[in-house]
Every structure is written in C-alpha cells, then in structure tokens.
C-alpha cells in the first residue's frame, strides 16, 4: 500500500508539473471489474454495469469517497470464465485498482476466488451462486439476495405445501446452475416429506417440450419445480399452455432463468400468467427504500441510450447497492484498507436502495431476500405493463409480500 501511495504521489506531482496552473488533485479511487458486454451474459452484464455507473456518478456528485473521485476500470470478459483471471491480474498489477468488483454471474466469477483469497483482497460479488461455499474467503460479499443455499427451494416448496401440495415434479436443464438448484430442491423435499414423482433433466438445445410436459403431466404432481435456461423457458411455457399440465398442479415455476428480463417477458406475454418464479426486485410498494425511486428514474432514462434492458429490475439496483456497500464502509472506517472494510461489512447492517443488507460469515446475505412472485394479468407484446404494480405479485418473503398465491396453477393461468 505504501508503495502504491508513493507512486500515486509521484504521478500527482508529475501531473502538476505537466499542467501548470491546475490545482493538484488527489488521484481517483479506482474500482476494477470485468463485465460481460458480449456473449450470452451480455444482457445482464450491461444492465448491471449501468447500475454501477449510476452509483459512480452519484457518489462523485456527492464529492466522491474521502474527497477523491471514483473511477471505474471495466473490461469485457465476453461472458467467459477463461477471460476473467487474466483481466483481474491486469486490473491489480497494471491498472493498480484500489478495489475489485466481481463480474456478473457465477461462472466468470468462480476462477477469481483463489486469486482474491491468496492475495487477501476484498471482492464484491455480483449475483454469483455459491461460489464461496468451498473457498471460504472471508472478504467476499455477494450483492445478490440469495441468502442460504437452500432458501430458494425452501421458499418455493413452502408455498406449494401451504397450497396443499404433497408430490413434486422436477424439470431441470442439464447444466450446472440448474442442477445445483435441483440438488437443493431434492434435499428440501426429502426433509419435508414431499415425494418426488417426476425428476428429469432435459439436454441443451431441446426443440420441442410437448413430449416432456406430457410425461410430466402423466405423473400427476402437485408441485412443479422448473429450473430452466432462457432459450428453453419459452418452449416449456408454450407446451404447458397448449397441452395443459393437469388440475392437480398447485404451483408451477421456481427457478426459470430469463423471466426476469424485459425482452423475454415481452416475448412470452400472457404465457407467463400463473407462473411463480424467483426474482430480486419488483415494482411493488414494499420494495421501495431511500433512493430506489430516484435510481429507477435515472436508470430508465439512461437505459434507452445504453440500449440495455428497459426495466432493469433484476441486476441494476444491486449493482448500485454494491457501490453503496463500499461507500458506507469506506466512510465509516475512513480508510481504503480492505481488511478494515471487510470487518465493517461483516459487523454492520447497511442501508441500500434494495433494502438493508447484513452478511453472514460466508459473505452471503444472513437471510434470503429472494422473491417468489406470481405473474398475473399479463397481456401480449407490452413491456410497459411490467412497470405497474400487481403484474408480479410477491408471495415470499413475508416482509415484501404483496399478495397471496392463486392456486391451482390452471386457475391462475387465466
């Protein structure tokens, strides 16, 4: 650190020498990250980055951190895990950034964990799922509201059981993230005495889901837990709407990735009705905190220019919250010392635009704030409808709840 400070001083002196007449300013605080701006994760990555950029502009308008401007150093990781280790080494050794933010998503983040653990660096996670569970780095903080690993499945199965569900069907993509969800779902089901009557993983590039849905329907489950990926979510819902899924089904959905993004929701339109799915932020009255409204006003304007997700509910406010976490910890400790900041984040609850955040020892949220919400009254080809309250009614967790589950699923489809 000393050497870096010295180097910073030298640069500052040199700058004064070069630009005579300009008042010497302290160098900016640099935050480095890679972000998916091309490739499969680009849709999410761009929205997330915009959230972080809005925080940067806000914090600089407030006078920066410790009187220094905040600067972002961002590289495109092309959605690929093979790119990120080199990018982060460069950020540390060449760009000499002061803090690291993780890239969007689990897979690009995973290879960074050994690096930050070895070097004892703070890493602000960005929507990864359980990347720290085996590494055990005590300076990792995830901005996502996931909470404990099994809370996802518990929340969904709870709702199903309350609606009278006793049997479960599990339909998952044959891919790591979905399989992780399936694993916890099986464990939770076992604990609660829910019997699994159908358990299938479908391969990537499945064209037609009518056959699978028909087999699922024949198993007559009460609860249908689906962990699917964006290209397939549409195919599954289409087949379900055509073939029907039986009037036994109390609740359908859970872990369908893609249904959080504006373009996908717009595409699927009324097919979404009745589906109960996870989310992170929704425009329900219970979700507004200090600064949330102002954030979305800015985001909505800037999203048009940046050509990113026009709604930006899923990732963008959490990108902003990452910045807020750092901002408050730096202000409270009055330093850039990463160990002190990590200690502060572990010991204190921090107010953000997505609500108060408290971390447990593994750097995930102490309690889950992952939403389970039911789509209602959605019409075709209209993205603006999702801005109004009541299109996605929050069923879980209780502090955000904005309505009750409509069950069975077939009744809720109308």
């Amino acid at each position, binding site marked *: 650190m000393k050497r870096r400070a010295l180097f910073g001083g030298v640069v500052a002196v040199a700058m004064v020498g070069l630009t005579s007449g300009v008042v010497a300013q302290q160098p900016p605080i640099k935050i480095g990250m890679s972000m998916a701006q091309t490739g*499969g994760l*680009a*849709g999410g990555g761009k929205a997330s980055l915009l959230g972080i950029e809005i925080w940067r502009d806000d914090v600089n308008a407030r006078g920066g951190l410790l009187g220094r401007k905040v600067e972002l150093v961002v590289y495109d990781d092309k959605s690929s895990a093979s790119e990120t280790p080199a990018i982060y080494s460069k950020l540390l050794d060449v760009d000499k950034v002061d803090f690291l933010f993780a890239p969007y998503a689990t897979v690009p983040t995973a290879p960074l964990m050994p690096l930050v653990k070895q070097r004892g660096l703070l890493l602000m996670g960005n929507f990864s799922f359980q990347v720290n569970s085996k590494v055990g780095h005590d300076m990792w903080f995830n901005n996502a509201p996931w909470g404990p690993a099994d809370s996802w499945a518990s929340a969904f199965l709870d709702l199903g059981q309350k609606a009278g569900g006793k049997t479960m069907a599990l339909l998952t993509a*044959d891919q790591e993230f979905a399989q992780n969800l399936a694993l916890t779902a099986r464990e939770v089901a076992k604990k609660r005495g829910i019997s699994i009557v159908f358990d*299938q*993983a*479908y*391969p*990537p*590039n*499945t*064209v*037609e889901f*009518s*056959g*699978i849905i*028909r*087999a699922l329907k*024949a198993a007559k489950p009460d609860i249908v837990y689906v962990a699917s990926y*964006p*290209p397939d979510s*549409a*195919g599954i819902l*289409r*087949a379900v*709407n*055509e*073939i*029907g899924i039986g009037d036994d089904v109390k609740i359908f959905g859970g872990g369908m990735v893609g249904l959080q993004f504006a*373009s*996908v929701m717009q*595409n699927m339109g009324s*097919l979404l009705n009745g589906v109960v799915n996870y989310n992170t932020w929704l425009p329900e009255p219970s979700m507004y905190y200090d600064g949330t409204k102002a954030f979305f006003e800015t985001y909505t304007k800037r999203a048009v220019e940046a050509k990113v997700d026009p709604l930006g509910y899923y990732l963008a406010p959490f990108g902003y919250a990452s910045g807020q976490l750092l901002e408050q910890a730096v202000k409270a400790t009055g330093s850039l010392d990463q160990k002190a900041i990590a200690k502060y984040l572990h010991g204190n609850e921090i107010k953000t635009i997505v609500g108060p955040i408290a971390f447990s020892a593994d750097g995930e949220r102490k309690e889950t704030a992952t939403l389970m919400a039911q789509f209602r009254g959605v019409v*075709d*080809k209209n993205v603006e409808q999702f801005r109004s309250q009541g299109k996605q009614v929050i069923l879980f967790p209780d502090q955000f709840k904005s309505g009750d589950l409509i069950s069975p699923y077939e009744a809720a489809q109308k």
Partner: protein
Amino acid sequence: MDLLLNAVVLGVLLGCFYAAVSLGLSVSFGLLDVPHVAHPAFLILASYGVFFLNDSYDIDPLLGGLLITPLLFLLGLAAYRLYYETFEKRGSDAGVRGIAFLFGIAFIIEVLIILQFGVDQRSVSASYIGKAWRIGEMRIPVRLLVAFAVASALTILLALYLSRTFMGRAIRAVAQDQEALRLMGANPVRIKQWAFGIATAVLGIAGALLIIVAPVDPTLDRAYIGRTFCVVVMAGLGSMTGTLIAAIILGVAESIVLSTVGASWAPAISFAMLLGVLAIRPQGLLGRRS
C-alpha cells in the same frame, strides 16, 4: 400405452418438421456434395426474415416465408458461385477447406443477425400458435400440425420437381455423373448453381416453420448442424422421400425416448440410430448403392 401413442403421434409431427429443415441440405449435400455446414445458419437467417415481416408488417409467418423465398434463391445462387470460384474449381483437397469456408459463412451470418436483431430470442405471432387440437384425451399443438402439413407438401413438391421437370432431372444427372453431362453439352456448374438456389429457397418455408415451432436466437444454427446432417445421411444422400422417412423415424425415436427413458437420452438416440443405419445400410435408408 396412452403416453406411448401420444409420443408416436408427436414424434411423427416433429419428424416432419425435421424433414422440412433438412430438405435443403438433402439437395446441397446429398446431390451436390457441398458440405454445407452453413445450411442451418441460412435457415436461422430465413427465420429472422420471417420474424422481421411478422413483427413490422404483421405478415403471417408462412406467407412471410413464401415472400422471402425468391430472395433466398438469389442468395443461394450467389453463395454457390462464391463457393465454386474459391474452392470447388480448384480441385481435390477443396473439401476440407470448403468446410472451413462454410463455417466462416455461418459465423458471419450469426454475427450479422446479432448486429441487426440483438442476442435475444425472437418469436412470431399467428392465430395457430399457442392453440391445441383435442382428440379425446390427446392434445396436439396446432403449430406442430401446421409444420406437419407444410413439411409434407414441401417434400412432395420437391420430389416431384426433381423427378418430373427437365431441370430437376438435370440436377439429379449432375449428381450422378458430371462428366457425362458435360459431354452432352450441358454446363454442370450452372445446373449445380441452380440446384443450390433451390436448396436455399426452400429454407424460406423451413425457416418459417422453425420460428413457428419454437423461438429462435442467433446461435440456434449450431443445434441444427448435427440434426440435419444426421437426417440427410441416414436418408441416403439426395433422396427426398428418404429424408422425410428418416426424419420421421428420428422424431418418433426421440419422442418415445423422451417420454419413457428420459429427456437426457434423446440426443444420443439420433446419433446411435445414424451409426446403426450406416453399419447395416451404408448407403442410407433409400440411397442407391454406388
């Protein structure tokens, strides 16, 4: 039993759809020996064309497919001319380099689609999408029935074209013996170019069916390379009715495996069947012994 019957019916419908997307390749690869790995990319391009017409002008996807057919025909002519001038003309080892060239074309198409339409998946709307036809307990998605009807019609038309018209026969002749054709004063390159145009033109309708059956995204072509080549090789290179039969067998097998053994096994089935057919009948189901 009910489930099995369901699976068979669905498999036949799905198979017809597979046939529709493979027919063009059956001409270009089966008859013309062009290792056309860019075939699925052209297919996705056609789907996006249909999407554009549907989204901007509210044109029915099938009508849209017909409208872009002449454009695709011209594109096919141009693509073959380019392929011929740069590779085929130069002789023997062109095959492997030709594949690399066609892969390149596929990637370029993919990127162009991304630049124009973005990475999101797209779908079309039409009155027959999202509805099901009920027969007793069975419910059949209407979009698959449409795919079935159109694919069968397309196969019959193409088979008739190749066997009854002068140009069709010429195309089959050029596949059998190029030298003989040349000796009779015909220009095999022009005939092949025409055939390639036809092979690309049928993608208009096939692309429409693709986007009717499921949403498309720019990289979907990669999923169809294996499937379409499997159908064409299994059919016996260049046989249109063989293509239909092979595709139906594949569809039914996949569908039965899907609803009995498990979804993860379905893709393995295509290739296991291909290996099986090649072991017993190397010339394919309806292929001629060469």
